């Protein structure tokens, strides 16, 4: 088990290096520091000296992969790739364009993101599983077909619609919650409740359909027939036999999402003015702040890989049939 985990973690390293290489190619090779300087300076008359000065100030004047001017190990370390990309491994994200420490910003903005993402995830999971179970209980009836039609319709409407409709109804017309903003502590509740409701609702369509198909596959298995043959009631078949077995694919399917909850939701946060990591990313994209985007790409991939490893581990915990070596 431990050996397996170590192996998985070692496998993650080349993937992270690959991620770094991709971001590096995107940010520094396709779009050379000279291009960046030109679009950042924005002035009409740009002299080569200005470009050099800008590159100097950002530390972008080093060669890409190999520094022939240096000697020894610094031949590799004194390069743009090493300085700008590999140092991300130490979670040293550098400074944003307005000279703020990105690491500090991320630490600060993590909590508002979690305040929305975590409740949305948990409430959503519970609601969707319960709904799927109810539908399974009434499978083949008119309730089943109508709910499935409604689920497709919910799925087909853009998430932006739910946000806008929610804001208009709850904030503008009924004045139940403020339209946007955030404050820390318990005051946050009135700001996060609407995003959570909308987040849960917009996820219902696809998740319920998915969970229903998982449960439907399980319900035709032999152990369910045995349980019925024993004379168990339908509810006890559902809760004692179907639910634990159906939870397995669901849990292992959602475990990968858990670490990425830290990243927040881009759209939700920027619509509701929540100062989380999602709106941080969007602002960075809009302001073309490459340092922040780069940091968020690295953080996102890192968390996703953590999620993958957790998924593998959760298989071994929840499913006794799987033995890892």
């Amino acid at each position, binding site marked *: 088990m431990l050996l397996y985990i170590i192996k998985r973690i070692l496998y993650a390293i080349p993937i992270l290096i690959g991620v770094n290489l991709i971001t590096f190619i995107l940010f520094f090779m396709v779009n050379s520091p000279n291009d960046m300087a030109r679009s950042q300076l924005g002035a009409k008359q740009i002299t080569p000296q200005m470009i050099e000065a800008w590159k100097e100030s950002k530390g972008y004047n080093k060669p890409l992969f190999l520094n022939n001017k240096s000697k020894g190990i610094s031949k590799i370390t004194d390069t743009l790739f090493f300085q700008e990309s590999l140092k991300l491994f130490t979670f040293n994200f550098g400074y944003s364009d307005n000279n703020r420490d990105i690491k500090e910003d991320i630490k600060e903005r993590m909590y508002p993101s979690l305040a929305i993402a975590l409740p949305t995830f948990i409430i959503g999971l519970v609601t969707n599983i319960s709904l799927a179970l109810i539908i399974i209980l009434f499978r083949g009836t008119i309730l089943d077909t109508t709910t499935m039609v409604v689920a497709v319709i919910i799925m087909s409407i853009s998430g932006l619609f739910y946000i806008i409709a929610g804001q208009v109804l709850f904030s503008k017309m009924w004045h139940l919650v403020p339209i946007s903003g955030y404050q820390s502590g318990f005051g946050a509740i009135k700001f996060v409740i609407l995003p959570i409701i909308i987040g849960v609702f917009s996820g219902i369509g696809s998740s319920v359909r998915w969970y229903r198909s998982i449960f439907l596959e399980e319900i035709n298995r032999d152990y369910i027939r045995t349980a019925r043959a024993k004379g168990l009631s339908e509810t006890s078949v559902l809760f004692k036999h179907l639910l634990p077995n159906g939870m397995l694919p669901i849990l292992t399917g959602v475990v990968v999402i858990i670490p990425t909850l830290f990243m927040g939701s881009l759209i939700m946060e920027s619509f509701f003015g929540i100062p989380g990591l999602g709106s941080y990313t969007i602002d960075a994209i809009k302001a073309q702040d490459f340092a922040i985007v780069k940091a968020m*790409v690295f953080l996102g991939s890192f968390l996703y890989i953590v999620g993958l490893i957790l998924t593998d581990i959760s298989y071994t915990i929840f499913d006794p049939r799987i033995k890892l070596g």
Partner: protein
Amino acid sequence: MNITLLWTDIMVWLLLFSIIVWGYIVSRSPRVREQWRSIFKSKIALSSAIILLFYLSFALIDSIHFRVENQHRVVSLLDIAFEHRVKNRERTYSAPFATHEYSKDITIINGETKQIYRDLKYVHSGNIVIDTIKSILIGVAISLFLIWLHIRYRKKRGKDSIIPWSSGYITLTTLIVLFSWLYIMSFSYHVLGTDKVGGDVLYATLKSIRTGVLIGVLTTLVMLPISIALGVSAGFFRGWIDDIIQYIYTTLNSIPSVLLISATVLIVQVLLDNHPDWFNSTLERSDLRLLFLVVILGVTSWTGLCRLLRAETLKISQIDFVKASKAFGVTNFNIIRKHIIPNLMHIILISVVLDFSGLVLAEAVLSYVGVGVDPTMYSWGNMINQARLEMAREPMVWWSLFSSFIFMSILVLSANLFSDRIQVVLDPRNEV
């Protein structure tokens, strides 16, 4: 006026052509014909397919461009049909069927300053009832003609069909009547209102169809070759090829897709800014950006399908008939072409239709983030994004949001319903 094809136009027509060729080739197999007949046995699937075709035809009409002589302007067939709404812009917002502007304006009447609702310039309040009757008659006449053609064609074929054509005819008639009503009304009113700079919302929504459909289908065109080639070779050859391909897609997958797309789009934007010589009008610039967006979306979204295809190929290559062909000395290429790919068709088809609806929705989100299509391009995402800024106004400017959401949802809904039906029919697990 002479025809100029933009890059995306060429891709669309190429795609249409290859779909027709592909359809002709596979339709010779009786098994495939049986499957498709079985798909259209469902009334919902038939109706959704007709709605999808209706949208597609708008995208196609909007994909034939002409260069106007002596002007630096490129217009499409749809622009020509809606010329009365392209040229005549109002000043600002107005509600659907309004005869006055949305907000009061200060004007001087007889030396007195007054706040009044100004009249719209290009609204000729016609007789709504007569126009409606006229448009219904025209719409019904057109659809009856099409249906008559189709029935004649069916009679000639002589076979009794199990496909519920009558519900298809109803859908078609509804669509045509609805559109002819919108079109005839658009001559006297702004049927769906006007936007901030006075542009007609109906026209903008119809123009957005092309953007949405194109992003949906062209991305698939980019994505399919990559995922099929890599997925099949990973599953078929195994060993180090499999390791490398798995490494590539795990790496790409681990980058949050919105971030990867936005990073790439940002870079393309800088690239376009630095190369103004690549295009000679704003339309061509935005078209180039759409092309890049489609390529980027394709390159970032092939991983899911690739993984599915790899797993399925692994399974198929273990089956006896593949082993037998290997033993007979059939080349790898021929095994893949004749045995593997045909058995992957259902997975490819299901994921293409599912991805289509996902991409149409993604366009809106990407445009909101600011990394979607060019801001000057008509798209549902841009419409939503602009309308969102006016949410605080009282009374609300709801019509842009309303029309873009309705048009988008109908497209996505029919794609979803259609893909459901394909899944039911083609997925071998459902045969039990």
